[in-house]
């Protein structure tokens, strides 16, 4: 291989990306060395097994990936803003829409959700950590490895360019001969293993680690949604694992699973991809529903309306999510019977979803609503998501879908469900739980400014796409001629995208501003909330709760505050905590080398790093680790300090 094939060449923008990657890396290394923070970084973050810190690392990574995916989106909107634009060439545009989809779904939405799950779920069930803390660290580092591998593809070797769904035969070696789709299979595989482990970890945590009295039907709604999401992860991700492995065999070892000859079947890829892909959209949206349930109940000062029906509807959604995947390829060639069946199952999902929407509305009815930033996002979610849902039912009708299949109508639809559904939810959750983790609120005035910019610009960006789709503009077109008449609406959409970018800049500035100026909380419950996570102090001590909580009903903290039902009626006892481990981050590093070597079919490094993976795994099995025990005196001291008392 020649060096000019190794690095992507010939594009000024990519040279800019290379320069910025090098500069940022140097800046980080110099900064860490200058401020002598290497030891701190290693001890407190890289080796941590604390669910809160892992959650924070997930969220920081997700925010960085949101920036990367957002820049992709801006470039796409800029390219299509006017007819015959020359900003990007076709190849570059293909790479950008592919990585935009991959990054936003797998490396932004998923880690953001999993990060919030990590921070919140153990606290909500009154546990000290997740069931397998070190496995949790492995999950994070595998996700991070996958994310870095995919991002590296932009400057080394070329990014995947066959769409985020990577349909065969386009994604096959024959039609995509660059290493781009090798990156696809390996980066997704590595981070997918991490996600699968997270799913298993959280199923066990929620089923086995609940505090005394925390029965299943007393769990906060976010924990319920996390449990159901984890179950979907555990059963949907194996399909992706298998599909990606077959893809890798096809591309790297020359097997014929998805080829068009020699008994291969290209359509099987689309089939397997969506068997995973449809449950995947519920993986990112159910926790979002959980977040909204918490926020709406808190800021309406009422308990959640229809708790049982919320749980049942989520279980029904999780089952139905496995029965609808063929609606992604109505036009592939199956008969009317198949399409009719999948049409009906798809429309059936709107029933439990509708139940949830009405439950939120009834929760707010006659409530004392306070319009905080997280509540504003939740309120905006309901009408915007409903537009997405209604257009979803339109797309679900197979015969009508033949008209707008793969047009901008579809693009508008899924942005209308994913952005208010997932992105608004994680931002709302970010604002809502931020004081829990860091001990101060994000500034409300800036938060609301950002909200209005984001909510309005979102509609300006994506509503025109519905019309463009109905006029016949297909998705993934890198340019169009002026005669098509697509120009004006695309220009409006670009203006909206600029507004969205501005909104996100305010959001990021708000984090900086609040770190500097926001007043520090003195008590752990700044929102007058209802659930257990607010019963401990903020920031949260490493052991979460000094005394194991004793739960006597739903909304445990609310009952404690208003019905005189104390949560902490035990006495302080020594607490056992897991000790830190450097092996997860090392495992991530070795996986990175392994993935990178396989991408380029460098067999010797691949074999060596493959053996190294096995050695690291085996060495973990032989670790003798009894964890650490926090003594009663130490707990008392920490608690006093957190309450602001002098020692």
């Amino acid at each position, binding site marked *: 291989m020649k060096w000019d094939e190794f690095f992507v060449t010939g594009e000024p923008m990519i040279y800019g990306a290379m320069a910025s990657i090098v500069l940022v890396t140097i800046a980080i290394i110099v900064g860490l060395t200058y401020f002598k923070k290497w030891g701190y970084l290693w001890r407190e973050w890289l080796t941590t097994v604390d669910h809160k810190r892992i959650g924070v690392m997930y969220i920081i990574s997700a925010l960085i990936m949101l920036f990367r995916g957002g820049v992709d989106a801006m470039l796409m909107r800029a390219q299509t803003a006017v007819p015959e634009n020359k900003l990007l060439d076709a190849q570059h545009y293909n790479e950008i829409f592919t990585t935009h989809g991959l990054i936003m779904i797998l490396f932004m939405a998923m880690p953001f959700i999993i990060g919030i799950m990590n921070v919140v779920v153990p606290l909500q069930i009154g546990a000290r950590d997740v069931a397998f803390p070190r496995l949790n660290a492995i999950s994070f580092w595998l996700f991070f490895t996958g994310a870095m591998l995919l991002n590296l593809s932009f400057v080394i070797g070329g990014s995947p360019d066959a769409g985020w769904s990577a349909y065969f035969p386009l994604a096959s070696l024959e039609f995509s001969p660059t290493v781009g789709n090798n990156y696809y299979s390996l980066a997704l595989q590595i981070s997918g293993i991490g996600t699968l482990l997270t799913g298993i970890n959280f*199923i066990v945590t929620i*089923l086995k680690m609940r505090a005394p009295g925390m029965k299943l039907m007393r769990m906060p709604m976010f924990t319920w949604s996390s449990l159901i999401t984890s179950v979907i992860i555990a059963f949907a991700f194996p399909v992706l694992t298998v599909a990606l492995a077959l893809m890798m065999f096809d591309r790297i070892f020359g097997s014929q699973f998805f080829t068009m000859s020699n008994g291969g079947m290209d359509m099987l890829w689309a089939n397997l991809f969506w*068997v995973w892909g449809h449950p995947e959209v519920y993986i990112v949206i159910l926790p979002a529903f959980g977040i909204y349930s918490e926020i709406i109940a808190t800021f309406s000062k009422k308990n959640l309306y229809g708790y049982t029906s919320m749980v049942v509807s989520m279980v029904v959604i999780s*089952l139905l999510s*496995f029965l609808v995947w*063929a609606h992604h390829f109505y036009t592939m*060639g*199956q*008969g009317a019977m*198949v399409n009719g069946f999948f049409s009906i199952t798809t429309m059936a999902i709107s029933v439990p979803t509708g139940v949830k929407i009405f439950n939120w509305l009834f929760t707010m009815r006659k409530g004392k609503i306070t319009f905080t930033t997280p509540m504003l996002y939740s309120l905006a979610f309901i009408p915007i998501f409903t537009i997405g849902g209604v257009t979803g039912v339109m797309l679900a009708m197979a015969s009508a879908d033949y008209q707008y299949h793969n047009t901008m109508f579809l693009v508008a639809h899924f942005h209308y469900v994913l952005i208010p559904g997932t992105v608004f939810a994680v931002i709302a959750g970010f604002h809502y739980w931020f004081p829990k983790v860091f001990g101060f609120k994000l500034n409300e005035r800036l938060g609301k400014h950002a909200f209005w910019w984001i909510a309005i610009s979102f509609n300006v960006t994506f509503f025109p796409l519905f019309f463009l789709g109905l006029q016949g503009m297909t998705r993934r077109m890198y340019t169009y001629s002026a005669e098509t008449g697509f120009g004006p609406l695309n220009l409006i959409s670009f203006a909206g995208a600029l507004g969205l970018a501005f909104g996100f800049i305010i959001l990021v500035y708000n984090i900086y501003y609040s770190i500097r100026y926001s007043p520090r909380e003195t008590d752990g419950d700044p929102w007058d909330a209802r659930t257990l996570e607010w019963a401990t102090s903020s920031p949260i001590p490493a052991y979460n709760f000094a005394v194991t909580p004793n739960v006597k009903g739903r909304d445990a903290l609310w009952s404690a505050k208003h019905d005189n039902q104390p949560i902490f009626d035990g006495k302080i006892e020594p607490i056992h905590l897991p000790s830190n481990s450097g092996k997860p981050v090392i495992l991530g590093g070795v996986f990175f080398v392994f993935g990178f070597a396989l991408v380029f079919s460098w067999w010797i490094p691949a074999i060596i790093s493959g053996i190294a993976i096995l050695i690291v795994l085996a060495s973990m099995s032989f670790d003798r680790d009894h964890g650490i025990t926090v003594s009663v005196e130490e707990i008392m001291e920490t608690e006093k300090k957190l309450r602001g008392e002098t020692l």
Partner: protein
Amino acid sequence: MMKQLFPIRHVMGYLTSLILSALALTALLDIPFASKMAILAVTAIIQASLQLFVFMHISEMASTKKELYLNIAYALFVGLVTLFGSMFIFVWGWYS
């Protein structure tokens, strides 16, 4: 002493699962279709129960039995739906 420490049950279980995987490969031989299916079905069922009983301790968990069986039922549901759904799309319901 050595006898108590050595995990004979698990080592045997592991070897058996490897042998079963190898046996399944005989389906590639030139034999009638029905025998292939029979070989695959029998080895798959033994393999699955081996995993469940030896490695996943399905018989030992008294406290979360309900959740365990619910999870297995869910897994079966997803597996069967994926399998028969794909057959439905590509074989029985294919446009012709």
